[in-house]
């Protein structure tokens, strides 16, 4: 767990990035959005910035690479599953997930028509 200490001696623990690497690709986005909407606003001022920075790292180091990784997988079934997950979660978590658009644009012309159709739809939103 990643530990954050407030100036008043309180301790906040958040799951570490290593553990997040094992998650389904959409889960880091769900957690980032949850943290920004609900966790960070409730945290003491002394740790707000540190936690916000931590979630920026999560976005760049875990969330975006996980989506790219799954969409680039050699397993066609896994690629389709990743695209379908994007389709399901994008409308719900678009605030955070829109940051992946530059990374997934290339899949709009994917040879797999199902994947290409989903990605095109997401980009056009």
């Amino acid at each position, binding site marked *: *767990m990643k*530990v954050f200490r407030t100036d*008043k*001696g*309180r*301790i*906040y*623990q*958040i*799951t570490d990035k290593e*553990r997040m690497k094992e*998650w*389904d690709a*959409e*889960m880091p986005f*769900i*957690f980032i959005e*949850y*943290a920004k909407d*609900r*966790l960070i606003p409730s945290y003491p001022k002394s740790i707000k910035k540190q936690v916000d920075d931590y979630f920026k790292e999560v976005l760049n180091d875990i969330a975006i690479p996980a989506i790219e990784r799954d969409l680039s997988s050699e397993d066609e079934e896994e690629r389709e599953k990743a695209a379908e997950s994007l389709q399901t979660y994008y409308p719900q978590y678009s605030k955070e997930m829109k940051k992946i658009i530059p990374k997934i644009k290339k899949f709009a012309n994917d040879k797999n028509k199902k994947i290409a159709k989903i990605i095109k739809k997401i980009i056009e939103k």
Partner: protein
Amino acid sequence: MAKKSKSKTKKRSKHSVLKKLRNDITINDLEQVREMFEKRLAQKKGIEYIKRDDIIEINDVKPKEALKRIENVVKDIVRQILVAGDPSFKIPIRTSSNIIYDAEQDLILLGQKEAEKKLLTLTSVQDATRVMKVMEIIYKQCLKTKKHMTKREVFYGAAKLFQDQKYSDSAIEDVSALIRTTRNSTGVVAKARGSAVGRLKLRDGNEIIDLEKQGSGAWSISPFLDRIEVLESDAEFILVLEKDAAMMRIIEEKWWTKFPCIALTAEGVGNVATRMFLKKINATLKLPTFCLVDCDPYGHYIYSVYIRGSKRLSYESPFLATPDMHLLGVLTRDLDEFGIGDDQRIPMDKRDLKRLNDMLNEDFVKNNKKWKDDLQLMKKNKQKAEIQALSSHGIEYITDTYLPNKLYSGDWI
């Protein structure tokens, strides 16, 4: 008349050692709890189980590995049929003769003695067939599909063969021990019974669960613990409660808002899911953990199962036990120190005394002076009391006075 007066004097003196209590304790006053938490956080690694050579080693494994292990057992049986025509397999014995108490780690573990189950002998063919059937059910219906089954569902997988659920339950444990894994790793789960509340956010698959926002209830501990993961917490300790009534008090007062903690109960003896969940949050968050049980031998037994595991599931102890949990109360001396009157105390019966003597004979009690002293005082008084006896001072006494003062004074075993 004189006799009556003597008795009154005796009653007063019994309750005269009242503890000095504070009513203004806050989380920042719980220095001993915070110090314990800091020490645990400073440990680089989590509290890991130390392997030893004379016990059966069990691993928590993913479905793919469990499938491979079953395939290996079956391949070995096929090989035996082809070579000698007399197949058998060896299952670790789970009776007391093969149970080892590890004093250093304070755990009950399973030794290496094994029983041979032959498939072609009358004495063991029924048992062996049941084990093989359970292995088939686990392989096809749980591991291959990555789904979970309850023990009852496994029983109905071949009710005629099992005859009674106790036989299928036993075969499930045999299969787990045979393939050296936890029952949870086989995908067979027990009915969920425990519940938890407090300062904890969990992940269940792709859903986030906030244990502070459970309305007037608590989150039911999921039997599918392989799907559950800790996401965030600012708790400073864990409180394990024997009784649902005590849990209701914690919930109604939203006690975790004043004392950031995670509270959980299994409503009695901790079932597998509750013990595994406790182990998971204790190890992940490195939180000091305390137990609140009735002041009777059964309450102490419940505490012992949480910290050492049960003898029946001894092979899973490292995955189920939380050895560093402390017994916060209700201690025998608390009855006097917190002014529990004679009206709230119940005389112990023969069954209580037998269990009390059994507890006193356990090595893990003999090795723990504070625990032994408390049980010996209980034996001397021959009285017991439930957690709810504290409510004789008012229903909020437990949350406003008892728990804060116990945690503040570091008065635990």
